């Protein structure tokens, strides 16, 4: 006999991948999150709607939404939610799931996060100059012209280092991250 499918595999996975995620079961659909969100007007679906869609197991629609990529991590939704749902953390979960499944929208900003973290994995510290030049040259070459002016000013005022800062024990960090990535493939949180 075939194995019985859980009723809402995607919804269950969303909850399981987020610490405290099962509070999502108590969502009242009140809209406090969507009303509080600073970038709510730019989202194609509010967090509230994403949760309803997740509950309906609409995996593709949820992961293709631009909403998680517009999350600014201000945590207004989280502290205001009357059901104490960790909404910001759920946005991170949606982003991770979108990247893992390769399902994300082309205009999303996954590669910004990826570039940013690439520098961390190389140097142990963030590297704004590298990030700014690489990311903006590929994405916003026109804005680059304006930004160049700002960039020079920042360099002049000692606020932008042209060479990356690095930590001493890079091998240790690499070992930790390599193991962490291996563990991450094992199962959910």
């Amino acid at each position, binding site marked *: 006999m075939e194995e019985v499918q859980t009723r809402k595999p995607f919804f269950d996975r969303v909850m399981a*991948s987020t*610490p*405290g995620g099962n509070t999502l079961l108590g969502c009242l659909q009140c809209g406090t999150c969507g009303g509080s969100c*600073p*970038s709510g007007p*730019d989202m194609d679906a509010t967090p509230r709607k994403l949760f309803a869609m997740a509950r309906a197991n609409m995996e593709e629609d949820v992961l293709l939404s631009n909403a998680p*990529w*517009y999350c*600014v*991590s*201000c*945590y*207004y939704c989280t*502290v205001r939610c009357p059901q104490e749902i*960790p909404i*910001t953390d759920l946005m*991170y*979960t949606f*982003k*991770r799931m979108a*990247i893992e499944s390769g399902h994300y929208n082309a205009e999303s*900003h*996954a590669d*910004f*996060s*990826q570039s*940013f*973290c690439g520098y*961390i994995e190389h140097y*142990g*510290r*963030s590297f*704004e100059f590298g990030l*700014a030049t690489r*990311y*903006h040259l590929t994405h916003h070459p026109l804005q680059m012209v*304006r930004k160049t002016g*700002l960039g020079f*000013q*920042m360099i002049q*005022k*000692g*606020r*932008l*280092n042209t060479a990356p*800062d690095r*930590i*001493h*024990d890079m091998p*240790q*960090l690499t*070992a*930790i*991250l390599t*193991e*962490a*990535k291996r*563990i*991450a493939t094992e199962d959910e*949180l």
Partner: protein
Amino acid sequence: MSQEHNAYGYYPGCSLKATAHAYGDSTERVAEVLGLTLNEVADWNCCGATEYMSLSAIPAYSLIARNLSLAAAQGHQEMISPCSACYLNLRKANDSMAKYPALNEKVNRALGAGGLHYDPNSLHIRHLLDMMVEDVGYETIAEHVTKPLSGLKVACYYGCLIVRPRTDGYNPEYPMHLDRLMQTLGAKVVDFPLKTHCCGGHMTQISEETAFELIRRLLHNAADYGADMIVTVCPMCQLNLDAYQPQVNAMFGTNYEIPILFFTQLMGLAFGIPAREVGMGAEITSAAPALGKIGHEEMEPARPKRRDKKSLPMPQP
């Protein structure tokens, strides 16, 4: 302030070494004047900002936890973070590891690959502002003020991550401790309803339309309430409001010229530390005109804005 309480582990974070070096410089000088010892955690790494958590949770937590482990191993019980984003991440890793045993086990397994280990809650992570007002205290700070900021009208901007999602007893929507600190320095504090609203975070890099609107709202609100400057506790807030102010003006046809300073810079100035030593001049929108005022006017009590003078008002709740 007790003797054993004036030494802290210190996690400056990447920004304080670059875009926010003014914050780092002023923090170190102010700490010196107050007799505080900030011991920088040796070989700390980036906290991952708001990005790493979008990629993969266990590596993101492990990246942060390396710092916790190093700090604890270097003998610190309390670690101070001046950057709100770092503060949030460090706290989040500690608290989540304490709350979710499965996560704790996995993160420690990853740390083990680097010969490290971290027991959740062995380190108390605090924001610099919290340490200043709680440990040093307003009274001690007042004692060090030699050049009060009389007449300077400041909008106190807390941003998000210092009060959310972990409030530490501060009001998550309308905190007042920075306001009180600024008043202690002699500054006049204007009401600033958007004090805990978002500066746009990483959106300045990704979607200017989204970010610049958020920045515009903040500048507009501060200007509306007559602030000479905005004072911040977070490198990201400072960068977004300060460095992008000209571009925001260009996009919306506005002409804001509101300097954005770190609270430690104003503490330094009030303590009589020379401006250059607290990173003055590093800001893109110059603070020089506003600072021209310092020391010339008597301090006046802050008055709420827009009170109707006519007719009998009902009592305020």
